[in-house]
């Protein structure tokens, strides 16, 4: 077992529900300060969204944030440079679309993540079936390949996916792209099927918009991912202190 998964299992071992906020890298010049503020407020790990021109699995909020970040000139290299100034050692997980890594070169990309302190990667458009090369590249660099589990994933595929997912299992609460929803949807069922074939930490994401929903999701899983709701306040102008209090409110709900 490699670094990221060990860290996250340790967290669970300590009885703590994981809180994983998602940031769009480069969305604002001081985005790394936002990351620090979140960790200060109790985030256990952070998803670093690498903007892509065609974010097929994202709703309007993250689409807009990605576009802004791209227009500001964000690249894989630039955001890794930015991360050098990050003052904490919390686990970081990249999230982006496959073409970014494919174009960069898979081994080169995995190496870049590792040297930038990113311990895992979520690639929503990389299916299990197509993931072999990427997994090999990551393996060499101790970068965990995190897979998504959808409500539509049948038990047979869940078994296959739990066999390869590393770090944690990303349980989609619903059949939807990223965005803010009103309930935790199918989270419990998805987590249960994951647990039926693996004891890897299972985190719930997609649509978790409020501390109450986070609490409900965490009650049936090992942690939650908070994306669009957070990105939205940053799009609307929130600075580091608002990010801190936003994350703190989720932390309180989870503890």
């Amino acid at each position, binding site marked *: 077992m490699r670094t990221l998964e060990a860290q996250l299992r340790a967290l669970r071992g300590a009885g703590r529900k994981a809180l994983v906020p998602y940031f769009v890298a480069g969305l604002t010049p001081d985005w790394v300060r936002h990351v620090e503020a979140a960790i200060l407020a109790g985030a256990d790990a952070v998803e670093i969204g690498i903007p*892509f*021109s*065609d*974010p*097929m*699995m*994202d*709703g*309007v909020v993250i*689409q807009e944030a990605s*576009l802004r970040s*791209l227009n500001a000139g964000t*690249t*894989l290299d630039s955001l890794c440079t930015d991360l050098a100034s990050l003052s904490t050692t919390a686990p970081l997980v990249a999230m982006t*679309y*496959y*073409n*970014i890594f*494919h*174009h*960069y070169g898979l081994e080169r990309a995995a190496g870049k993540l590792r040297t930038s302190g990113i311990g895992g990667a979520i690639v*929503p*458009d*990389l*299916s*299990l*079936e*197509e993931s072999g090369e990427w997994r090999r590249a990551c393996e060499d660099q101790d970068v965990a390949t995190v*897979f*998504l*589990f*959808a*409500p*539509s*994933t*049948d038990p047979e*595929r869940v078994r296959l*996916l739990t066999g390869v997912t590393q770090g944690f299992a990303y349980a*989609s609460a619903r*059949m*939807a*792209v990223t965005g803010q929803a009103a309930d935790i949807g199918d989270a419990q069922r998805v987590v249960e099927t994951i647990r039926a074939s693996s004891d890897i930490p299972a985190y719930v994401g997609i649509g978790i918009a409020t501390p109450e929903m986070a609490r409900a999701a965490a009650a049936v899983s090992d942690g939650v991912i908070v994306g669009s709701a957070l990105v939205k306040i940053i799009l609307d102008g929130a600075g580091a202190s608002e990010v801190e209090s936003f994350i703190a409110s989720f932390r309180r709900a989870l503890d």
Partner: protein
Amino acid sequence: MTEDSTFMSSPDERGRFGNFGGRFVPEALMPACLELEVAFRDAWADPLFIEEYERVLRDFAGRPTPVTPLDRLSERLGIRVFAKREDLAHTGSHKINNVIGQTLLTRRMGKHRVIAETGAGQHGVATATAAARLGLSCTVFMGEVDTQRQSLNVFRMELLGATVVPVLSGSRTLKDAVNEAMREWVTCVDDTHYCLGSVMGPHPFPWMVREMQSIIGREASRQLNDLGVGTPDLVVACVGGGSNAAGVFAGFADSTARLVGIEAAGGSAVGKGSPGVLHGMKSLLMQDEFGQIEEAHSISAGLDYPGIGPEHAHLAESGRAEYYAIGDEDVIDALKLLSELEGIIPALETAHAVAWIVKEAGTLIPLGSTVLLNLSGRGDKDVAQVRAILRGEA
């Protein structure tokens, strides 16, 4: 349905044509893609399904479309040009072949709704049409820019009972319409089929759409024999995603004919692209140095796409087919030439293929050659745009 072919055979079990293709989709959509593959294999091997598909193409869509000798153009160019007349198919382009197959498959899978992306609106109109026929509900995603450029096609879809959703993200054109259709599909995959409009997307779409379009090539090959022409020296088609080209190529892949695909210069995935992953497939894509997808820019909305179907990427790599690009500036002249000499106003997409033939007759096309042009669609949809261009308004 197509005979086993050396050059255009079925993809491998991962959906690869050589180095291209595959299935790069969110896990949420994997079951639907797998289900679709099973359903398609099953249907395509079922004589009753094939019979219905062919019957609807005949009785509803007007197949076979004829092959027209273009005598006056031929005389002008010093080559012999024949046109496969997909412009005469119901709704005005080859797109109907594919949607008839996919809507029948939708019903067979027990789904009640289809969604589709569209650029100029041809695939959207075709999908709305085929859906209406079967009483399926239908939603079409169309870039907001395109809904404005092609507002009459929006209204045609609405008349056919479809809902048209303007897509506000990204460049607000075809690429973004595909993104949005994929996003929608995730939310409703249970009872909804995504009726993709070209030989692109995740496996089995590129293969399935090619199979459903291969009737073009099979008919044309038979018709050229009936006309006493035999195998043409060249088969030429325009390429957006590549469905009309794949369909006509399929009838000649194992012949001696040169297969030629014509892209728009501003959407030239073979000419200017490199391998990448988008919309569920690995293929050739126009992208910047960081792997961000570039926006295509073409006079014709149907070729305004930065990628190409994976089988074309493979045919280009293997050398079985050649791909060239034609710039906007040659397209209008070609459209006018075909109109004036032959009484056929082609779609702007098709006019790219015409322009290449006109340009290369005597050079890349040796004098005396026999050329089959796939006349993928009619120009009615483009007439307002062409007028504006000629009047210097656009």
